[in-house]
């Protein structure tokens, strides 16, 4: 064996073994000349570490979404009731719609199911409480860069102090440093432009109108909003209506409240529609005060109410229908 033969661990060794000595030596020389890619710029230590950190964060986050309150399981249907098959399907799916799956190949979308809120816990201790039907998309998992999420619907953000964080919506951007705030993205009926509303509970956020690059800074208790491509409006003190009351989901219906009011409250809190087969039912009144428990999944709330009113309900494509068919 020629002294210039590559080491025993070299992948070329076997390939040359069958050749005659002269050619083997010549090709071994050639191999030595070409075996290293001299154009290789070397490992960029920072990028290498960033990828490692991003991967570690990604596999930690793979278990998300992690609900901290409501279980994902659909309620077990009682005898005589139709099983809530679609609720089960959504809950089971729960709707970790991951583009490129799970960890998201750079993008992962988490969507709260229509009948309950969903809390997303991030690796740095921050959390995003998604209103039913809302969704956030992580745009990129690279350590060292500000975390950036795209929001549709409404969510309440609690960001760990010191964390750079940006929320983007269809028409606005909110830049954050350690704070609590809510963002609601909507398209009012008949409007073509998106509206992004921001309520700041703690800390400080800057709201930028997507097309204007004009920004306003909110103080705690402030609200501001962006309509379409316009500049954000000057911040003002929040009124009761601006508060993210959907988070509490405390349902209190007084005795005598008509069903239409109850349905309006349910539709305002969840991303679903409640239809009533017989319009006369809308005037049916609650016989006594109803105090809904905090963070009640929609089917459970409906089940309680239907029991009180002697009605029953069934799932539809976009929510539920309340009907008079008596249960057995």
């Amino acid at each position: 064996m020629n002294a210039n033969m590559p080491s025993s661990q070299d992948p070329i060794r076997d390939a040359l073994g069958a050749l005659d000595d002269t050619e083997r030596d010549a090709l071994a020389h050639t191999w030595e000349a070409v075996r290293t890619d001299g154009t290789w710029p070397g490992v960029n230590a920072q990028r290498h570490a960033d990828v490692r950190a991003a991967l570690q964060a990604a596999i930690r986050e793979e278990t998300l979404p992690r609900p901290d309150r409501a279980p994902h399981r659909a309620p077990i249907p009682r005898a005589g009731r139709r099983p809530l098959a679609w609720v089960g399907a959504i809950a089971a799916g729960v709707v970790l719609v991951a583009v490129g799956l799970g960890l998201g190949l750079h993008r992962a979308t988490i969507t709260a199911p229509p009948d309950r809120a969903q809390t997303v816990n991030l690796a740095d201790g921050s959390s995003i409480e998604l209103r039913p039907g809302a969704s956030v998309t992580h745009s990129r998992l690279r350590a060292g860069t500000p975390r950036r999420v795209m929001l549709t619907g409404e969510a309440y953000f609690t960001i760990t102090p010191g964390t750079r964080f940006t929320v983007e919506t269809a028409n606005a951007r909110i830049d954050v440093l350690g704070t609590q705030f809510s963002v609601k993205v909507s398209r009012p009926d008949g409007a073509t432009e998106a509206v992004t509303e921001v309520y700041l509970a703690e800390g400080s956020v800057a709201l930028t109108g997507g097309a204007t690059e004009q920004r306003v800074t909110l103080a705690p208790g402030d609200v501001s909003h962006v309509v379409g491509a316009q500049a954000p409006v000057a911040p003002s003190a929040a009124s009761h209506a601006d508060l993210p009351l959907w988070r509490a989901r405390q349902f209190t219906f007084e005795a005598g409240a008509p069903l239409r009011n109850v349905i309006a409250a349910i539709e305002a809190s969840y991303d679903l529609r409640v239809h009533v087969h017989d319009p006369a039912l809308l005037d049916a009144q609650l016989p006594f005060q109803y105090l809904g428990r905090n963070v009640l999944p929609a089917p459970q709330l409906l089940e309680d109410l239907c029991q009180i009113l002697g009605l029953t309900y069934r799932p539809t494509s976009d929510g539920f229908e309340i009907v008079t068919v008596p249960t057995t």
Partner: protein
Amino acid sequence: MQRSNHASSSQPTSSPHSAVSREQQWLLALREANTEAFDALYGSLSEPLLRYAWALTRDQDAIYDIIQEAFLKLWQKRAELDPDLPIRAWMFRVVRNLAYKTHRTRRIRSEVALDIDPARGDTPESSYRGQELDHLIHRWVDEMPPRRREVFQLSRVGGLSHHEIAETLAISSKTVNNHLVEGLRFLRIKLRSHGFNEQNL
């Protein structure tokens, strides 16, 4: 989590049996969602994979994205991987596919094509300087038939064994041999034609 010695070695072009069997051990642990095994595999495989991605794309930015995506895929597919097959080969295959995907995307955007270095001159004579040898070799490798080029790159840059190259490309070990020998013969002719010989190499 500690990086393995193998990973910090400046010679990623070799895959000693011990390193390979260690990687297979990590693969077994990875199947049980062991995050330390995942990190150990990153430590062991990331540099050779980066070199390989570099050889295919010549894009300093894209290679880190490719590696990140490849390791994410490893984590996602961990339960489906056959622990008897070399994980090294599997990862090189993933990186290769991702690099070609990057290439396709770029081509659509009319950017530089894979394996073409815009900094390189077209005439070898004009660009022939000592430090240009690497570029020349790179271009000669590009001139090889596609399958031979792949075998050659996996061997040269990835440091894969015959068995691993055969696994990666789903060809026989004998075919791997033939490609390597033919590739070296071709490069030897090219080198000689540019004034390199056994003495001055």
